[in-house]
């Protein structure tokens, strides 16, 4: 394996959880809900995926458990903010703190255990293409799913009737309500989708990225996912590109160090964040475009008139 290939492989592994968590949050935000609990849902997904894998011996069941756990955990947020109309920002932050705490407690007996890695699946024929094959078609199922989810979300949002309704709910919940769309139900489902994606991202961490469980192992990736959503100005493919860009910058800075380039490591370590800020500045330069895409009701509570 050449060094370029090796770098690209680690970029894909590093970017997949970011893309997954972010695409879920994108759908949630498109419905007008700001859920800052991505990190919490992600770490819950990671611990449950690892636990179920250990108990059953099957990483696929573990993966499903991660998805389910993320989805269920997100419903706590949905209940508090949509039914009880609690403040979304505060509740999201609380969800993150709760997730980190609860996952630590749940995972205590799984610390230090040898993880079971989700094995790559080679897609016949495609896997034999030189260069591209080993990179894109000899991956684990979560990578394939991440691409499918991005494509699916793009289709759903811009080509399907349900997606149109979801966007309407995010842009003007009052009008959507007046037109007979069930705002609260739509938002519950969007939050649940976001939780499921974050859970799958967590499962990738504990089953593919580093097959083990250690407390707080998401290490802030949920926050990067949140930034990616803004970075992409709420567009699925741009979000995926941003995720891979971020992964590429963070991997190449490690290689730059190992190569012995005389650049301060702290500066190199901050590069991914610098890149994010630069792109955010470039995007916001075109104010009109950003404003068009931002869901107008984002973060605003909806109380239907009785």
């Amino acid at each position, binding site marked *: 394996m050449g060094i370029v290939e090796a770098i690209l492989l680690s970029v894909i592994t590093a970017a997949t959880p970011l893309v997954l968590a972010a695409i879920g949050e994108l759908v949630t935000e498109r419905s007008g809900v700001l859920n800052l609990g991505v990190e919490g849902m992600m770490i819950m997904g990671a611990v449950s995926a690892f636990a179920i894998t250990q108990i059953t011996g099957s990483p696929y069941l573990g993966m499903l458990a991660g998805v389910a756990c993320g989805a269920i955990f997100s419903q706590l947020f949905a209940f508090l903010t949509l039914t009880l109309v609690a403040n979304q920002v505060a509740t999201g932050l609380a969800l993150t703190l709760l997730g980190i705490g609860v996952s630590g407690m749940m995972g205590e007996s799984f*610390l230090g255990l040898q993880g079971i890695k989700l094995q790559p699946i080679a897609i016949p024929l495609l896997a034999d293409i030189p260069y591209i094959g080993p990179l894109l078609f000899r991956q684990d199922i979560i990578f394939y799913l991440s691409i499918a989810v991005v494509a699916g979300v793009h289709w759903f949002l811009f080509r399907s009737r349900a997606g149109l309704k979801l966007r309407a709910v995010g842009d003007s919940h009052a009008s959507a309500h007046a037109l007979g769309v069930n705002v609260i139900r739509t938002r519950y489902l969007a939050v649940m989708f976001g939780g499921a994606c974050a859970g799958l991202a967590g499962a990738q961490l504990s089953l593919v990225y580093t097959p083990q469980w250690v407390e*707080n*192992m998401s*290490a802030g990736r949920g926050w990067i996912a949140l930034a990616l959503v803004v970075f992409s100005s709420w567009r699925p493919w741009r979000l995926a590109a941003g995720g891979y860009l971020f992964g590429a910058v*963070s991997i190449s800075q*490690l290689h730059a160090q*190992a190569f012995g380039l005389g650049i301060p490591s702290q500066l190199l370590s901050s590069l991914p964040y610098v890149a994010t800020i630069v792109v955010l500045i470039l995007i916001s330069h075109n104010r009109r475009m950003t404003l068009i895409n931002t869901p107008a009701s984002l973060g605003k509570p909806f109380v239907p008139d009785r």
Partner: protein
Amino acid sequence: MKKLLLALASTAAVIGFATGASAQEKAKICFVYVGAKTDGGWTQAHDIGRQELEKALGDKIETQYLESVPEGPDAERAIERLARSGCGLIFTTSFGFMDATIKIAQKFPDVKFEHATGYKTAPNVATYNSRFYEGRYIQGQIAAKMSQKGVAGYIASFPIPEVVMGINSFVIGARSVNPDFKIKVVWANTWFDPGKEADAAKALVDQGVDILTQHTDTTAPMQVAAERGIKAFGQASDMIKAGPQTQLTAIVDTWGAYYIKRTQAFLDGKWETTSSWDGLKDGILTMAPYTNMPDDVKKMAEETEAKIKSGELKPFTGPLKKQDGSEWLAAGATSDDGTLLGMNFYVEGVDDQLPK
């Protein structure tokens, strides 16, 4: 409602009184941890020490601990709470607790404090640390024997003297066996991020190192080494579970003996402020079993360990040059502890520029 509150309050008072009373019979020894006591690394090592203390002196003392106390203002509150609740001796086990420990110690002159890895003392504050670098010297020697390519990878956390000292000791050990040995350093700029540690490990392996060592806290680099079929060293705890065919040895922090010694002194009324910096010979640092290596390498490692214990060998002994080729220690001269504790330069053989 009022009645209920009253009942609750009186129960709490009774419980408080009861624990207060029992504390007078048994001395209360308390611990403040920065992480979870089952983190598999730094904090777990301290908690094992606490358990050994309980086993040794359990009839005379009781122990109490606070887990996952963040460094900063919260640490002050946590330490003060313990001091108020009748702890006689309090161990604070992270570098970042230093200022908080000193501050609370001024408020409670009758309580004794011990701070791990710090440098500030007071009449009722002692410090303790471990000569981790002694273990890294042995690892360096093993690496030089085991590596085919003569290059090791070092995953580092932050450019503080403790870590720089570790890198240098590793290189000096390696070059005592193979004078051309080199290491590549990658700074992760974190103590704890399994994903990033694994990526750093992969980057090092992809760039041609065939042996890995780490100064970060998770077993992720060990996992990568196992996957790629190279050898590696564990850090803070025995990480053999993460790489049964991979780990050569590990530096294991063993604080138990120190905790017993100091608590005994406290019970005897002989506790005094000290700045303790013990190493292999005092048992505060031990090496995990030497595995996955030929017998002659194992024998060399054991001999070096014995020499360090007897004081015959000191890792930082000249002739040594700094990275830029300038003279540091003349032949036979040894470094003083002050230089080590403030170390801010590389020795020859490090293929990296030290972040400033």
